[in-house]
């Protein structure tokens, strides 16, 4: 195994809700304050900052809100759900190279139904509701025809997965039900009512073949983590969640539907997965729990395939026999409830849950979890990290 350069030593979050009624900057500050307190550190310790580039609280805003006056490393990473592993990787690289000693990363987003603070697409509310009357960029190739929102894009991808591989509504539903079975145990989850496959199949279509219960929540909320060097981590108050390894990956096709099927995703995905497992010195079968980006249920199946937990096309059957259900399933996935049932924080809450699993403090704890896999959004330029004890 590789030497461990960095560890996540603090996690924090705001409340998760349909409408918090505060700015995204306040949500960010709340989550960051909780993460620093969890680590036993203060803003004065922070010299690195890694963010999503769509964060409305920019590097400068964060420095101003928190009074960060000696940042010496900061970076942003593009794409929403694709970013949360990348920020860990950037922070780890900075720590390993000595460019920072304590790095903050966070995501705060108010996208609940009641939340819309500004006209900019990153300022809260639903981005597609702010599409201008005249559009350029990739939107011009789909929005005029009625493919406007992510669920519609993912529905097209899901339909083809069903046609090519025999994936069923039961498979999609099991992803949602497994997530809910975990959320039922999690007092912070927004959706805690038990859910059955029948409930899933009875929920209304949003964009066929995807139903309401195939979709992530619309939430206000924020999450933050604090990373430091492995050496310093040992002296702090929490059990460190070491960053064993990570990788980023992108190819010519991501979520734009016109590109998704033209290029062979397997080429670069297989290479990225092999790079990760080879470099980390572990295999998918060694993983105790996985946190996979679950904006829509089919993308969990695709992530399972992309990262080698099953063969291409076999994500659906992999979900059978309670495989995704913690704490005892073959591969417990999103043991907090994920974006489907805990909250939609662009995946950052998946990261916090991965840390809890390594610490042994999840509300759906996998016994003696030592290795947790985290993957960002399979529909974006994305990546994965492995956290371990």
């Amino acid at each position, binding site marked *: 195994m590789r030497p461990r350069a960095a560890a996540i030593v603090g996690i924090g979050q705001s409340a998760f809700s349909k409408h918090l009624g505060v700015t995204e900057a306040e949500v960010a500050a709340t989550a960051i304050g909780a993460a620093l307190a969890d680590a036993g550190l203060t803003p004065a310790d922070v010299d690195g900052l890694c963010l999503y580039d769509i964060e409305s609280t920019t590097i400068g805003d964060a420095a101003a809100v928190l009074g960060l006056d000696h940042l010496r490393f900061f970076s942003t990473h593009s794409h929403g759900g694709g970013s949360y592993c990348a920020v860990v990787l950037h922070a780890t690289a900075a720590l390993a190279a000595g460019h920072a000693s304590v790095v903050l990363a966070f995501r705060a987003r108010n996208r609940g139904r009641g939340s819309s603070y500004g006209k900019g697409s990153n300022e809260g509310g639903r981005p597609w509701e702010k599409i201008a*009357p*005249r*559009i350029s960029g990739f939107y011009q190739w789909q929005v005029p025809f009625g493919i*406007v929102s992510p669920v519609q894009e993912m*529905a097209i991808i899901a339909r083809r997965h069903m046609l090519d591989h025999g994936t069923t509504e039961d498979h999609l539903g099991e992803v949602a039900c497994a997530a809910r079975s975990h959320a039922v145990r999690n007092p912070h989850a927004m959706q805690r009512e038990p859910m059955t496959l029948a409930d899933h199949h009875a929920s209304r279509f949003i964009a066929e073949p995807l139903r309401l219960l195939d979709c992530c929540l619309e939430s206000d909320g924020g999450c933050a983590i604090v990373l430091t060097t492995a050496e310093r981590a040992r002296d702090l108050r929490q059990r460190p969640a070491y960053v064993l390894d990570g990788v980023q990956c992108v190819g010519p096709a991501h979520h734009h*539907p*016109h590109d998704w099927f033209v290029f062979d995703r397997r080429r670069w995905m297989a290479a990225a997965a092999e790079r990760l497992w080879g470099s980390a010195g572990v295999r998918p079968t060694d993983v105790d729990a996985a946190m996979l980006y679950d904006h829509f249920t089919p993308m969990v199946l695709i992530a399972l395939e992309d990262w080698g937990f099953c063969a291409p096309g076999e994500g659906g059957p992999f979900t059978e026999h309670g495989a995704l259900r913690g704490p005892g399933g073959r591969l417990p996935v999103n043991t907090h409830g994920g974006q489907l049932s805990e909250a939609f924080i662009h995946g950052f809450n998946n990261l916090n849950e991965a840390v809890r699993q390594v610490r042994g403090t999840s509300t759906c704890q996998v016994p003696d979890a030592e290795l947790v896999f985290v993957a960002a959004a399979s529909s974006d330029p994305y990546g994965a990290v492995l956290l371990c004890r």
Partner: protein
Amino acid sequence: MDDVLPPLPEPGPDGREFWDGCRRHELRLQRCASCDRARFAPRPACPWCGSLRAVWFTASGRGRVFSWTVVHRPTLPAFLPMLPYAAGLIALEEGVLMVGQIRGCDPQAVRAGMEVRVEFDDVTADVSLPHWRVV
């Protein structure tokens, strides 16, 4: 077309030839002048061979449904009166995929492989949109 317009293209240098073609009811595509592969959406270089040289040609306008969704929930106001509607990916004869609306049959009757032909809606004086009608 309904009173409320959908967001419409504001063509940049890459897309202008395509959208100008639509106004003439011609489906214009790029083809790499080096490796001969057609591509969509328009872009400045060939994603397969890297060549910056491309030629534009008029596509046949024939294709087949590759994948689709039936949209039930509203998004932008322009699409409200159409619900539910079918839209998806059309595999053109020339080997490219293009997002489009699928017309001329019950949305529930759409199937993969269905033959479709392009048709153009003149939405404004300067924009015509290509849609796909089941043959």
